[in-house]
């Protein structure tokens, strides 16, 4: 989890939660919704994904309605990480809380479709293997790394409390 490597799919600015998980699929389970992820932006996207692929987008990724199903379905679809210039605040928090690594990178738009990139969450850098470039990102503190490594906030709490009995963590 500390280093994420994958192939890039590029999306534009203002990808909203309705494009990520279109409204008509909201009643489906997360696994089912994942089969339609980002159809609102690219109708064929779900069929192109290989596990571990990375989404790279522009500004304000995840804006719109604050549905937690949006980051959940991206994660369920096998996407390893989402990199964007910046995220809508609620989406950013929801993504971390469900265990999807979201990374803000001011240079995100330099990354091209099909590039292979390597994200180092702790050191705070992205290496673009294809273009031989390096971009700075905000590094994650321990609390966020713990949430991501355990697959989300609830899973982290479950694990901690399982280990530590009924005491508070």
């Amino acid at each position, binding site marked *: 989890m500390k280093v994420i490597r994958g192939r890039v799919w590029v999306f534009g600015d203002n990808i909203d939660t309705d494009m990520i998980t279109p409204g008509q699929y909201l009643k489906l389970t997360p696994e089912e919704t994942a089969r339609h992820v980002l159809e609102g932006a690219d109708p064929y996207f779900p069929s192109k994904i290989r596990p571990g692929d990375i989404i790279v987008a522009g500004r304000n990724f995840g804006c719109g309605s604050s549905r*937690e199903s949006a980051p959940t379905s991206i994660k369920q679809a096998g996407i390893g990480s989402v990199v964007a210039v910046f995220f809508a605040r609620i989406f*950013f928090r*929801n993504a*971390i809380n469900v265990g999807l690594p979201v990374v803000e990178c001011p240079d995100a738009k330099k990354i091209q479709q099909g590039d292979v990139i390597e994200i180092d969450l702790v050191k705070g850098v992205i290496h673009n293997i294809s273009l031989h470039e390096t971009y700075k990102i905000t590094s994650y503190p321990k609390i966020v790394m713990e949430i991501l490594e355990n697959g989300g906030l*609830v899973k982290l709490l*479950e694990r901690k409390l399982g280990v530590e009995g*009924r005491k508070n963590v």
Partner: protein
Amino acid sequence: MGLTLAQKIIARASHRKRVEVGEIVEVDVDFAMMQDSGGPRRIGATMEKLGVQIWDPDKVTIISDHFVAASDTTEASILKYTREWAKKYRVTKYHEREGICHIVPVEKGYIRPGMLYVGGDSHSTTAGALGCFAISMGSTDMLGIMVTGKTWLKVPESIKIIWNGKLTRGVMAKDMMLKTIQKTRIDGATYKSVEFTGEAVDKLPMDERLVLSNMAIEMGAKAGMIEPNDVVYAYLEERNITEYEAVFSDPDAEYCEVLEFDASSLSPMVALPHSPDNVQPIKETEPLSIDQAYIGACTGAKYYDLKMAAEVLKGRKVSSRTRLLVAPASSEIIRRASRDDGSWRTLHFVNQPEFSWTNGTRSRSDFSFACDGGSIRYNRENY
């Protein structure tokens, strides 16, 4: 380089000397609020499964305001669940039918300068008017806070908004905010913390300070803060609150943007359908007949608002063609208005408005909708 109010409070809550904008840090939460809609009923099952207590029940308040008074059995059962949950988890600061979740914690003296406060409702920024860093979070985040007393956040950039000069008669904090939002638009402060300052801000009564922080959400802000002053200290003293540590921005703190406005030339403003940034001065607005007028919610129906409305209505009566709706933000406000100076008499007995006092007036919108023609709402949003 000095630190902003937001940076200072976050630094203290993360046990650090200073924090930089853009950093993500772990913080201790000083106080947390949940309400009946997004609170216990959303996190109860997971808390049960985890078999864990609240980290510190004295630092938690639960306010039932969205579903009071219950209009059907589903709502009644949500209230029952919330009430029993508070008892089970030893939350003694439980308030039902006492007012809106952003006003009650302030009135009860739970909110103090310098605090890091998290509320499970969008307009939790309201508490920033007392000089604390007050932000809103969703249910999963609130669950984490209930269990650990900690959360993580990104240190925001700050925008400084200066209101120079004095407000003229009949111009209020709501007008200041509409003017501000007209300038910033609804997304102009996204992610950012807003600090309000200047002569006009400094002179506002407590009720009016709360409006600035409350409506900071309408410009997309993460927090809307005002440095504490004598108005805040007196308010706390009335509630016998003496233990707190007031925090102020450094003179050389860094702001990503500074906006200046002149209060003395400001006139009453209105936001036209359907966005809080579609603003113009009322005097430039085409005359419209008003079928329904609504004075309500956590932004628009505090004591000061009722007093101003009563002043306008003194010696007059609402037209028979207009329905007046009043939904005071808390029971303390009703008590004060009925005791103090006859505001309540003017509003309630002379004009006989339809009357309610719940946050449900916004969450369910069952009170403030009009299906015929012009509706004017003294509220905080007009979507």
